[in-house]
């Protein structure tokens, strides 16, 4: 069936994109000492805006500002007052949600329906949720008086720019820390609008500092002797490097890294529901999700029928301009990422996996990838082992639930997994046997600030969200602090 849709574009004007953006240090938008960099709109491959980047001296200033704000203001303020600032920020995000959604889609390339219905509202919810913890730290199960760690250095990725900022900043502030945070090089805009919201909320200067730049600035930040806590979300390779660099410093570290999530479909699954879950698992945000369900494990007895249904559904996905409200799959964030996806996809073909691509039309400019399914792959292929971080699904079959578990766990990663079965006891049994931090049973890609999120094994350590997410920014009596070292 051919579904014709008229274009339904959201207006780019709503984002009120400025020509140039500045880093935010000690409560002011300041000129960074580094070169200006252009951020690209991946939907068209054209420059969107430029922004000033910082130098290591600027990082020093930001860390010093955060330390001052911690010692003189933030650590002396009551939890209830801290919480009220966070509530204000949550409200501020909600009030400017339409602008933020359009800006996020322009800078990142994600469909407006996702930035509008997921990224921005969930970012606001994260501030609202954590605001409530600020005066209740004694109820976290960390003893009667858990202490803030001090200054947190945070580095976030480009796949959910505003949401990751909220995930990092909200618990840090609620726990009583101050923050120096670096957004990704390709997506700095939404967090710099968030800085305006922080300023409008009259958050004291230095409590949150936003430094812009590339990996060298991130490295300078996490290695800065003036910080007490490092939180990083990004690739496993960089996470490994950070962990090695911090050896012997006693600095508290949480890492949220890559994944190769297994999405397991058993023969008794409700297949139409499972198809929707597989689609959501790998094509949400163009598959640029650390917990993406990038490995489909389907039981051999239904594999052929299931893959036919899946392909029929994927063919209906509309790949198009991120600002079109009908778009299901938007643009890949950058040329670099596009090339990585292409390279790994070619490796899959070269290794002999059978490839299927949706015949959907692609926009004639910008960075797009048609939804891709490797319909038959083996455990040893790179496309089964390595994180592709794109709209590319790898299929492996299995015969028994035990085999499914063995294959699902056969990876150094351990971030997410999905199970599709109508048998509740089997779902729960498999959930227990899967070595991953988040298990979605008959659903996928659900997130909530009240539910802890984070990895097993080489997907990192530490949690974000829930009580455990707060614990990542606090020290209890029997836990090390930097000062004690």
């Amino acid at each position: 069936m051919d579904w014709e849709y008229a274009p339904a574009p959201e207006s780019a004007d709503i984002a009120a994109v400025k020509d140039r953006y500045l880093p935010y240090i000690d409560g002011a938008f300041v000129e960074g000492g580094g070169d200006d960099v252009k951020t690209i709109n991946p939907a068209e491959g054209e420059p969107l805006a430029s922004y000033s980047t910082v130098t290591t001296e600027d990082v020093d200033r930001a860390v010093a500002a955060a330390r001052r704000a911690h010692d003189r203001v933030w650590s002396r303020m009551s939890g209830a007052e801290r919480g009220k600032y966070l509530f204000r920020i949550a409200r501020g995000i909600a009030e400017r949600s339409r602008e933020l959604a359009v800006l996020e889609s322009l800078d990142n390339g994600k469909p407006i329906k996702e930035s509008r219905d997921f990224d921005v509202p969930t970012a606001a919810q994260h501030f609202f949720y954590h605001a409530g913890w600020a005066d209740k730290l004694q109820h976290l199960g960390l003893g009667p008086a858990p202490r803030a760690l001090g200054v947190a250095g945070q580095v976030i990725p480009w796949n959910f720019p505003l949401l990751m900022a909220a995930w990092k900043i909200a618990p840090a502030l609620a726990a009583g820390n101050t923050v120096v945070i670096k957004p990704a090089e390709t997506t700095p805009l939404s967090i710099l609008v968030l800085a305006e919201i922080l300023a409008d909320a009259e958050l004291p200067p230095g409590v949150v500092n936003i430094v812009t730049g590339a990996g060298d600035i991130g490295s300078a930040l996490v290695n800065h002797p003036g910080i007490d806590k490092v939180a990083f979300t990004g690739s496993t390779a960089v996470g490994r490097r950070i962990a090695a660099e911090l050896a012997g410093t006693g600095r508290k570290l949480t890492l949220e890294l890559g994944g190769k999530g297994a999405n397991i479909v058993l023969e008794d699954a409700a297949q139409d529901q499972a198809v929707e879950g597989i689609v959501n698992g790998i094509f949400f945000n163009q598959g640029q999700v650390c917990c993406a369900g990038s490995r489909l494990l389907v039981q051999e007895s239904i594999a052929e029928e299931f893959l036919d249904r899946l392909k029929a559904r994927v063919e209906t996905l509309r790949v198009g301009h991120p600002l079109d409200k009908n778009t299901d799959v938007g643009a890949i964030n950058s040329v670099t990422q596009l090339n990585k996806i292409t390279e790994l996809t070619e490796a899959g073909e070269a290794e002999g996996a059978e490839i299927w691509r949706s015949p959907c039309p692609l926009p004639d400019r910008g960075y797009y990838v048609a939804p891709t399914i490797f319909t038959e792959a083996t455990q040893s292929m790179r496309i089964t082992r390595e994180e592709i971080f794109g709209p590319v699904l790898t299929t492996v079959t299995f015969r028994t639930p035990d085999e499914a578990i063995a294959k699902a766990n056969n990876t150094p990663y351990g971030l997410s997994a999905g199970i599709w079965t109508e048998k509740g006891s089997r779902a729960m049994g498999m959930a227990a046997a899967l070595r991953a931090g988040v298990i979605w049973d008959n659903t996928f890609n659900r997130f909530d600030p009240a539910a802890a999120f984070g990895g097993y094994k080489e997907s990192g350590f530490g949690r974000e969200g829930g009580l455990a997410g707060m614990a990542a920014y606090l020290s209890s009596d029997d836990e090390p602090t930097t000062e004690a070292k």
Partner: protein
Amino acid sequence: MAHLAIPKTYKLFIGGKFPRSESGRTYTATDREGKFMANAALASRKDARDAVVAARKGLAAWAGATPYNRGQVIYRAAEMLQGRAREFTDLISTGRGVTARVAAAEVETAIDRLVHYAGWTDKLAAAFGSSNPVSGPYFSYSAPEPTGVVTVFAPTGSALLGLVSVVAPVLAGGNTAVLVASEADPCVAITFAEVLATSDLPGGAVNVLTGRAAELGPHLAAHADVDALDLTGVVDHPGDHELRVELERAAAQTLKRVYVPGSVPDFAEPPGTGRLRAFLELKTVWHPTGAVSLAGGSAY
């Protein structure tokens, strides 16, 4: 005629058995005055690897045991330790040159420490897990699970109490351990292994290597089948900072969880929960709550 005593041969403890080091090496354990106490096995890299294999094997049985059962086994270890309190008191007072009364107090505290952790096993999920009030039709919960195989460097200053204080939380969480004993106190460590061996602990749940942390550590820290490190025994003298950095760097390559206490712990103090939490993973599960017609809405 006086009875000629039968001195004990101190060997390693791997997979529930007491093998000699495959290397055939030994070293001399001495008492406070430097006099000969015993020959201890000087564990090699191969012994360390064997211990990791045994710990991985033991994980299924130990992590898979019910929390109640794990608690009973750890309590049983306390019973066994109580029964051999005299022997440990003698070993400690000889090895460290302290009075029998001081040594006996350490043994009593060690027994109590085991009892403390025996009571933790079936409360971890209640204390560190949660039911998550998510905004959607899902039942979401987060529950702790064991991290896996933990390499523990036992502290040097506290031969029995320190050892028990670092091993028990690892076990209580359902993990298995490769324990690198304090080089100075192999006799206490191996005698404690005999306690564990008679406590219904599954083979491989705890493995004890005697020898040199600086020799064994780098191999264990780099071993891909080790999931976590407890560096308590590496930070309790300042000269070890370089070793600590080396081990942390090696651990980073496979993103092991690393626990480093902020300072040398006073093991006589009641333990907090930091050690327990260091070797637990939190798993969040989302389960749909079903059709709206079943979930209702009129109940309120």
